[in-house]
């Protein structure tokens, strides 16, 4: 009974976040364009040598997702802070973790959509040959996104309500995401090159471990950072 209430609340928050996001189209468009722009900049930095670009594709892709994603996380709380909606949100009865779950799922969908665009552009710009193992790459991308979004949604709950939110979120988030980025980049890169050293499996394991641990940890800790 109580649980189905929570599920209903989670659904409502997801719907609300995505609807507001969809209606202010500028948000998604600008975040996705930023991701593409970062890819272009990486292309220019690593420049015109096709092989170097190809080698760096996985890393560039993940960094573009990370940098653009950070904007999405702060945005998702900005909606709540305008007009004091967070106050109203916190006053509804029910478990706090439902708020986190709702925001998390909405951010997952948001970042996944952005990922689709960035990956499509990346394949073109970095002349990536899509390997036959692409379903595994998709799986790794989903695992990586879950890791980034769970921590991003969690830390943004604090940073968006503090002074210096622009600098605080990356400062807290990036070091925490090093394992997940390392694993996601390495696995993606390995699969793009045919996984000759058979390492993608190990990285996938790492991603699963990371996701499970930090999903549990952020769900438990969210209550402490959202109130007061």
């Amino acid at each position, binding site marked *: 009974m109580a649980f189905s209430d929570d599920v209903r609340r989670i659904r409502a928050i997801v719907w609300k976040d995505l609807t507001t996001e969809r209606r202010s189209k500028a948000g998604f468009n600008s975040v996705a364009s930023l991701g593409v722009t970062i890819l272009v900049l990486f292309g220019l930095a690593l420049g015109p040598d096709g092989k170097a670009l190809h080698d760096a594709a996985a890393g560039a892709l993940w960094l573009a997702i990370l940098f653009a994603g950070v904007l999405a996380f702060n945005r998702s709380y900005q909606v709540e802070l305008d007009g004091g909606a967070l106050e109203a949100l916190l006053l509804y009865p029910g478990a706090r973790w439902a708020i986190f779950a709702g925001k998390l799922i909405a951010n997952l969908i948001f970042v996944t959509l952005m990922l689709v665009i960035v990956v499509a552009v990346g394949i073109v710009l970095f002349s990536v040959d899509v390997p036959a193992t692409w379903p595994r790459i998709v799986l790794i991308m989903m695992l990586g996104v879950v890791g980034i979004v769970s*921590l991003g949604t*969690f*830390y943004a709950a*604090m940073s968006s309500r*503090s*002074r*210096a939110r622009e*600098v*605080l979120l990356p*400062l*807290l988030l*990036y*070091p*925490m995401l*090093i*394992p997940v980025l*390392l*694993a996601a980049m*390495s696995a993606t890169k390995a699969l793009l090159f045919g996984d000759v*050293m058979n*390492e993608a499996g*190990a*990285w996938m394991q*790492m991603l699963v*471990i*990371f996701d499970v*641990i*930090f999903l549990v*940890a*952020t769900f438990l*800790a969210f209550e*402490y*950072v959202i109130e*007061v």
Partner: protein
Amino acid sequence: MFPAHPNQFGPPKPAPAWLGWLAFLFFVFAQVFSVVTSPADAMMGHLQKNMYVHVPAAWVAFGAFGVVLVASLYFLWRDDERADLLAASSAEVGSLFCGLTLVLGMLWGRPTWGVWWSWDARLTTTLVLFLIFVGYLALRSFVEDPHRRGQWSAAVGILGAINVPIVWMSVQWWRTLHQIQSNPRGLSPVYLRGLLLNVAAFTLLTIWFIWRRYEAARYERAAEHAAQAAALGGYNA
């Protein structure tokens, strides 16, 4: 005293003066003893002596972060502000030693490996730990409300601590899979005595540092509580 609130406390018990003196004298002794008694290593020459500052610094940095973890958990569990102050003090001292470890590691790596930095699991993990500490301290400085600051930084501290073994594991995998150079070789037992002495000295010093920083934080809060008692003085009188 006025309020029935767990977070009301008076001034701290000062750290005993003898502990400070002991820590410093012991530290000087350990440093001199180990430098004087250890012969030049066959492979590394005098460079081996870097070990007597580098390894203890790394050890106390990780230890201090362990204190942050435990104190943060206790704070969230019991809502005892003293635990938050202890976590903050440990984080400060820990980040100092963590930074020191990194610099000393570079001073060892440059003549040994020919590079200032290597993406070795230990170095990388220490660097990530240092960055997490920096974020933790930045968060503390950006949040004014003490209760909010306590809860937020406790959450950040705990998550950061959880992340350390994961970072270690990921860098280890990354390194072995890519076959970068191997670890520095294990340390000869001949030098163990000096190392242990210095580890003990650094630990003592760190305890004293944390204690004094904690003491300062307690005085600051006690001053605020005294002001509170004055402000709330005749309530309902």
